[in-house]
């Protein structure tokens, strides 16, 4: 048998560069965590500058606005606003310090970033590589730069460095590549190996690794200089317990920055190898050079400290880049953890500008969540692409999702504000059932949102066939990031305002009792769900329903895309690749049809109810305010019930995305039935409760509020129905599988 025949067939490799890298997001999350910690340090320093007497007097002044004596919703709301505004003024002086500290951090980081190239040049004894020293090497680097499509970097070298290596550094606009004396000798003795190593370094520039890596590093060093140093000085006269509390948090933050940096760098090395391997070709020198690399020390500590993966892993990834597509649970956990470290500090900063609790929570979430979702979302989309390209189903996102959510839950524990502010964090509340439920809601919500993103990716990639999907991917990530931001913002606001919510529930209960005393109405729990003041307050936020609409419709919009033959060369690093993406089943359209059918059923039911009211109740009763209010709540409740059923039916074939889509469409009909009822009654008398014109007289503001109420409350119900169905299906599927494949005895 010839050796050629024994060689395994080399498949065209999938192109990981076809998708955005998660590097920028991962480093972005790190920078956010560091900036958040810096905010806290400068807030602390600001506090140490004000006398305790002055602080206490200010706090006492605010207590006069306490809402504890409020007896109505209006009084409670006014008192809360006044108290929040007073507290905001009291702490307003801290904003200047926090913003000044942030500016100092960023300016110092920029200065360090600019200084790093000089420091590397000095420390590594680098000198400019001139044409007099090595003309052939300079020419080769220029040719390889053109090949990579980048401007030739500044070339430096250390003649005394014997290793055959290179180093990319600098910043955008002024990149440098340092070569070693050993590598320049290779240029003469082994030109293919020289080209492979230089291509790797140029690939770091092409992959935009250099600027972001050094900026992250510079931000960390700036944090040590601008925040940790003055912070340590202010702590000198504090007790040991406080110093210990600060120290372990800072050490953990440093460990997180260090380990994440190393993990990202290791992944970037593989990407640089991959980029270099394309022009190098399957029989180029890169694989040989990698195979000849010295084996690093093994062991967990050695592995996490290294910024290059083991040579065998690099070689394996060059041959088969598929393992690069999924994100992995560790990275997802780190993203969640790092993102929420800063949450409390950002909230504190914003609290002096934004006083409304839900808006405050939303904007704080907006500062941290999109980057974290970017990290996880890019991984989910890439994994879906890799799976579908091979004709298999994308992997379940549950493990990554759970890891990400676990990071979100644990993150606040590491926040520096925990040094002095003893808050009931999610972790500390886990010891009681209430706290466990809150944590479960956060974890469940985040996991569901990531599952949504996975389904979106799967639907859109199938619909697009072989067409490139960058715009769709960006849109999907944007929707997922928006939805997660809203979810986290609402979650923390609701959790912080638990007592106020209880007050709100009492208000709706009293309203129900008042109506129930006069006319028939829905049960109190249904009334409370439909008319809960806080829930209505949340769903009427301008961002809530638009995000919900996008969540419901974006995945299903894929069914309207026509699959066309496309050039799929972008999807592969090597020529000759063939995408095996399965086509999108027409079943994806079903949730929309189910929603429309359910919505039509609602319109019929609404007409029947109106007929019943017209002929079953006297004109005097129908004219009562209590009757009108009860009728309105009943109609909204019916619309929500229909959405629940639609959601359950949509989930049967379409999963939770189907549930959302079906309930949204049904909700649109529900809204039409509720606000269009008076007009219909004006035109068709038997449908009327009270006489009215045959014209659309509904105010647009009221109409929009009803739409927000029906769509949002119905979506929650539809999602609940969908969850029940998905859970039941999973159980049935498991039982069927067990029936077909009984466990082997013994």
């Amino acid at each position: 048998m010839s050796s050629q025949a024994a060689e395994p067939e080399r498949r065209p490799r999938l192109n990981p560069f076809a998708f955005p890298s998660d590097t920028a997001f991962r480093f972005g999350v790190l920078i956010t965590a560091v900036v958040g910690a810096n905010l806290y340090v400068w807030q602390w320093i600001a506090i140490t500058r004000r006398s305790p007497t002055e602080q206490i007097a200010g706090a006492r002044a605010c207590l006069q606005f306490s809402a504890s004596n409020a007896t109505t919703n209006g009084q409670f709301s006014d008192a809360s606003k006044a108290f929040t505004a007073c507290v905001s003024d009291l702490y307003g002086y801290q904003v200047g310090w926090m913003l000044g500290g942030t500016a100092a951090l960023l300016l110092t980081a920029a200065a360090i970033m600019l200084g790093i190239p000089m420091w590397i040049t000095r420390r590594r004894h680098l000198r400019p590589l001139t044409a007099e020293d090595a003309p052939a090497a300079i020419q080769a680097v220029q040719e390889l730069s053109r090949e990579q499509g980048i401007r030739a970097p500044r070339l430096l070298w250390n003649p005394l460095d014997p290793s055959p290596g290179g180093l990319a550094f600098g910043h955008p606009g002024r990149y440098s590549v340092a070569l070693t004396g050993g590598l320049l000798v290779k240029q003469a003795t082994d030109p293919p190996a020289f080209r492979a190593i230089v291509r790797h370094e140029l690939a770091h520039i092409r992959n935009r690794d250099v600027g972001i890596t050094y900026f992250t590093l510079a931000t960390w060093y700036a944090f040590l200089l601008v925040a940790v140093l003055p912070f340590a000085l202010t702590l000198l006269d504090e007790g040991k317990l406080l110093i210990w509390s600060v120290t372990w948090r800072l050490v953990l933050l440093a460990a997180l920055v260090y380990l994440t940096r190393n993990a990202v760098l290791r992944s970037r090395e593989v990407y640089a190898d991959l980029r270099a391997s394309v022009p190098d070709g399957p029989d180029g020198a890169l694989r040989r050079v990698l195979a000849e690399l010295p084996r690093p020390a093994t062991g967990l500590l050695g592995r996490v400290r290294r910024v290059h993966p083991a040579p065998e892993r690099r070689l394996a990834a060059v041959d088969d880049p598929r393992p690069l597509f999924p994100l992995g649970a560790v990275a997802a956990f780190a993203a969640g953890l790092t993102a929420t470290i800063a949450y409390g500090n950002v909230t504190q900063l914003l609290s002096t500008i934004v006083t409304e609790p839900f808006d405050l929570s939303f904007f704080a979430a907006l500062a941290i969540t999109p980057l974290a979702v970017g990290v996880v979302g890019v991984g989910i989309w890439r994994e879906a692409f890799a799976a579908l390209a091979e004709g298999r189903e994308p992997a379940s996102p549950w493990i990554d999702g759970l890891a990400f959510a676990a990071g979100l839950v644990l993150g606040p524990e590491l926040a520096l504000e925990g040094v002095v502010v003893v808050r009931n964090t999610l972790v500390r509340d886990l010891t009681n059932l209430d706290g466990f439920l809150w944590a479960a809601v956060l974890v469940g919500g985040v996991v569901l949102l990531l599952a949504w993103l996975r389904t979106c990716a799967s639907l859109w990639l199938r619909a697009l066939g072989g067409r490139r999907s960058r715009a769709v991917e960006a849109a999907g990530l944007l929707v997922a990031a928006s939805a997660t931001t809203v979810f986290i913002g609402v979650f923390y606001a609701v959790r912080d305002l638990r007592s106020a919510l209880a007050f709100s529930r009492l208000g709706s209960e009293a309203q129900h009792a008042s109506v129930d005393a006069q006319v028939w109405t829905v049960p109190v729990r249904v009334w409370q769900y439909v008319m809960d003041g806080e829930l209505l307050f949340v769903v009427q936020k301008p961002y809530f329903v638009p995000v919900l609409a996008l969540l419901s419709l974006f995945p299903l919009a894929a069914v309207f895309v026509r699959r066309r033959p496309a050039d799929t060369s972008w999807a592969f690093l090597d020529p000759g690749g063939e995408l095996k993406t399965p086509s999108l089943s027409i079943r994806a359209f079903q949730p929309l049809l189910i929603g429309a059918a359910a919505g039509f059923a609602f319109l019929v039911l609404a007409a029947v109810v109106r007929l019943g009211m017209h002929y079953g109740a006297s004109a005097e009763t129908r004219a009562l305010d209590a009757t009108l209010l009860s009728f309105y709540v009943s109609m909204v409740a019916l619309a929500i019930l229909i959405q629940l059923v639609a959601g359950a039916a949509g989930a049967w074939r379409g999963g939770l995305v189907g549930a959302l889509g079906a309930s949204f469409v049904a909700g649109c009909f529900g809204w039409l039935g509720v606000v269009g009822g008076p007009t219909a009654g004006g035109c068709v008398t038997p449908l009327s409760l009270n006489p009215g014109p045959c014209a659309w007289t509904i105010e647009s503001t009221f109409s929009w509020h009803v739409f927000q109420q029906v769509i949002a409350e119905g979506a929650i119900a539809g999602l609940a129905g969908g969850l029940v169905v998905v859970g039941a299906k999973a159980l049935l599927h498991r039982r069927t599988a067990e029936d077909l494949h009984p466990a082997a005895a013994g």
Partner: protein
Amino acid sequence: MSAAQNDELVAALARATVEKAAPEELPLFRPTSEAYFADPQALQRGGGKEAMLGFGVDAAMMLMTPVVLQVAKDVIGFLGQQLRERAAAEGEGAIDRMIAKLVHRDGGESDAEPAAELTDEQLEQVRAFAIEKGRALKLSDERATLLADSLVGSLATA
């Protein structure tokens, strides 16, 4: 002997050794030796640490010239000490001339002087010394031996 003269001697011995042990490095000999003489300590300080966005081979040693320069410098010092005893009777200035002769850097000015020759025992001492130094500078046994043989060869044929 001035430092510049000493550097010239070291460079000459190193160049002759590189010609034998690693001729492919000759084109880079001039800038490498310039860098070495500008800061000889840089050789000991540099390397050994994995660099961010490097290629990841920093531990692998493949360039001989810097090591040869360092070993040549030490050997010249060693030779000076060895010959000092022999030349004690002839005065201090003779030592420099003898070393220069050993490495063919006398410019033909000292034809009248008796040629300095190293005994086999002394050459073996130099060889062992060079191997030891080469290993200390992280050369493999094989390359340290090659360096030592080439260096001794340069001295023996001087």
